[in-house]
């Protein structure tokens, strides 16, 4: 079985799965139950001066009947007294010495305030520090959180103050609410941060109640923008991880965050260079128990791929990402519909006509190159009588006239039909040998000069 143990920026944990700083890591009792369930580490709910929260605090985006595709929160940092949190950190470390406990920190932008909280957190036994420069709501209005993380000079200055006092590794948590996340990552690296955590939540308004016309979540008759997370943000987070990992001036050990709810996403973050991953929304949705499949699934995948340790595949996908100008313009694929798998929904046909390049046709049972609207109008003029299925056709066979056909001369290989097809493996994209050598746009421009 694969070895999932991790050493990240000098912090050891039995596996790379950490609770992100948030409600699941609010108190010692939760963190200990999480460790019992299998989590390898926890970044404590951000410590700082006591705050007061509002109710309500969360809102979400559902999609096609699935809950919480994205989650938005307007909750602030911990609302528990600092000494209580520190006492619980000490208790957790005493009982779980091999698990990683990271103190997330956010205080006002004063050198002494940062020195004090660094010392107290480390005295309590935390294995590392995560500087919350990312929280995009509430705290930022008070000059903290993303207000720091959006200005490279502030981020560098405060990271520097922390490094003056810190004896444990210092991670800087980055906000995605910037034009180029590398600017802040470079500032952290200049200030000698030991690692980065990315991404924090994304500025968001999840939706509006169409009866009251008040955006969610409501606090009496008003709302405020919040921070967005959950499965919906994964692609944005992956892109930012890659930007950091591929930039020599930014590159530090990265703890990946953003929409990770299973082992597959964890593997993806690591393939782009993440050393550990942090999870919050998925735990808020389903509980600590989800880590069991994360561990199990990741190690099974590693076994199947022949990866013995996490280092065997960390960053392995980075070389496969390049700029558009280096992609091969002569690489040609086309869509192929496998009739035996087609169920006859015609979603590829209408998608290609209305959303792509008009190269899928309903002409297997006769030569009818017609637009979707024409085809539909013909159907509506047809006569049907009960029962339509007598003599009963085999319900497992799609009638030939319902199976679309790809015009392979016209197909541009865009993938859209394959993406909309509900059946796995029914539409495949297949390589066409056009006899042309590989040539990128930059090569072509170079030749033409």
């Amino acid at each position, binding site marked *: 079985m694969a070895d999932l143990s991790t050493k990240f920026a000098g912090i050891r944990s039995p596996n790379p799965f950490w609770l992100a700083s948030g409600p699941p890591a609010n108190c010692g009792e939760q963190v200990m139950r999480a460790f019992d369930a299998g989590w390898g580490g926890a970044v404590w709910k951000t410590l700082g001066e006591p705050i007061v929260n509002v109710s309500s605090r969360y809102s979400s985006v559902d999609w096609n*009947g699935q809950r919480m595709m994205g989650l938005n929160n307007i909750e602030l940092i911990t609302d528990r007294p600092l000494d209580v949190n520190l006492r619980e950190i000490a208790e957790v470390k005493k009982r779980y010495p091999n698990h990683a406990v990271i103190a997330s920190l956010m205080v006002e932008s004063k050198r002494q305030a940062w020195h004090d909280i660094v010392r107290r957190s480390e005295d309590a036994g935390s294995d590392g520090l995560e500087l919350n420069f990312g929280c995009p709501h509430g705290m930022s209005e008070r000059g903290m959180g993303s207000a720091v993380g959006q200005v490279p000079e502030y981020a560098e200055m405060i990271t520097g103050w922390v490094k003056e006092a810190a004896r444990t590794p210092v991670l800087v948590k980055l906000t995605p609410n910037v034009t180029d996340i590398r600017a802040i990552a470079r500032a952290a690296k200049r200030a000698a941060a030991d690692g980065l955590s990315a991404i924090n939540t994304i500025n968001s308004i999840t939706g509006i109640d169409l009866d009251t016309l008040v955006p969610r979540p409501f606090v009496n008759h008003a709302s405020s923008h919040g921070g967005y997370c959950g499965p919906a943000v994964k692609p944005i987070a992956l892109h930012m991880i890659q930007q950091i990992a591929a930039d020599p001036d930014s590159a530090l050990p990265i703890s990946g965050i953003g929409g990770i709810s299973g082992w597959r996403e964890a593997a993806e973050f690591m393939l782009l260079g993440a050393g550990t991953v942090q999870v919050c929304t998925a735990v808020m949705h389903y509980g600590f128990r989800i880590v069991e499949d994360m561990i199990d699934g990741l190690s099974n995948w590693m076994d199947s791929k022949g990866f013995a340790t996490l280092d065997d595949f960390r960053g392995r996908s980075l070389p496969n990402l390049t700029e558009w100008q280096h992609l091969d313009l002569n690489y040609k694929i086309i869509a192929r519909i496998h009739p035996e798998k087609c*169920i006859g*929904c015609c*979603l590829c046909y209408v998608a290609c006509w209305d959303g792509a390049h008009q190269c899928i046709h309903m002409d297997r049972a006769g030569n009818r190159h017609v637009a*979707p609207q024409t085809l539909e109008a013909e*159907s509506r003029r047809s006569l049907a009588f*009960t029962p339509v299925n007598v003599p009963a056709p085999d319900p*497992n066979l*799609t009638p030939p006239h319902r199976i679309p056909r790809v015009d392979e001369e016209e197909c541009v290989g865009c993938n859209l039909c394959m993406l909309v097809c509900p059946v796995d493996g029914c539409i495949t994209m297949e390589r066409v040998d056009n006899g042309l050598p590989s040539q990128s746009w930059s090569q072509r421009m170079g030749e033409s000069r």
Partner: protein
Amino acid sequence: MPSLNRQEIAGHFAEIHPPFTQQAALAEANRCLFCFDAPCTIACPTHIDVPGFIKKISTANLRGSALTILDSNILGLSCSRVCPVEVLCEGSCVLHRYNQRPIEIGRLQRHAMDHFYDTGAKLPVRNRKPRMRSIACVGAGPASLACAAELARRGYSVTVFDSRPYAGGLNTYGVAEYKLRPDDSLKEVELVHSLGVTFELNTEVGVSVPLETLEQVYDLIFLGLGLGPTESLGLKGVGVKGVVDALTLIADYKTAGNIQIGRRVAVIGGGNTAIDAACAAARLGAEEVLILYRRGRDQMPAFEFEFERAQSDGVRFHWLTVARSVKTGGDGRVTALECVRMDLGASDASGRRAPTAIAGSEFLLECDMVIPSIGQTRLVEFLSRCRNVELRDGCVVTDPHTGRTTNPMFYAGGDCVNGGLEVVDAAAGGKRAAIAMAAHLEEQHG
């Protein structure tokens, strides 16, 4: 014999397709793939935009969903309950080939229709200018209701005539209670009424109002009169106590007060109505219900799911059996059926193997109630009085796309044309005729 009143009767007919809760409807609607040029829509005789109305359920636009249904089929409520969806929309669902679980289209349609009727059943007012032309519909069943609604929505003045006290035809009188209740049928009648359609009930065309009067008063006439009473087919003894044809039995338990059911009931016939009658007898207290069918199970015209319902209601089948005569006791009541066993020979005109009696196989089947359900007669006597309207096998000959008969003043649809299909077929026939009639009138009169 057990005797039941209306409430007791209703209590024995729990709906076979109970409604969805809001949450269940949403979950089911979200499973729909939203096929393009969807097979379910093509399969529906009225071509309801099925993915369209399901999509609207998924976006909580229930009124829009209902209006999408009603736009194609004004009888969306009854069809959602009585349609044999297994051989129509649901039978065509592509999910049969995906995960073997077709969308429950019938129940989703019911969900939208229930919302529509529970929230006032208001159709949008279309500002169509009233047209000076009027149409008579003969019969107030599904075909005429669909025809009348379509014409009324286009601004025409429509009068529907029916000999019975309630409109709705078989929807009110002839559909098994566990599928559709009379109240629901009458809600639909009221919806058509709300469009401005006039109903002349207890008015039999050709008796209380002469056909010639209709021809003089109305621009066009739609024949939607359905079929006649159940066939007797030479069964000796029809008319004695304890012999009740299937449609009369169903009409009585649905709309009359009391009903008496035998202890041992024999239903004769192998169609869907025979099953409805047999299930009714079982639910109304019969101790034993038998269905006698002259061919075998494989040849039975009833749908498979109807057969299964009969089995689950405890109905037993006597295949290859024909009832020849009814035996009565001293009080004049049924005591037995004289039956004979059949054998299947060569294929007949219908393509099915013809049954022939096995000599010497006669036997007596004891029973105290007999329910013949061997098809309905054609209303040839009335139809032959409609001048120049051609009939074939007792059914009106029409152009299938327009419902136009061989007399351009007469259009027709429903059972009197197709010989007896489903409510949705009648609705489609009535609508197609209405569209053609409107086109004809516009062409003639602008």
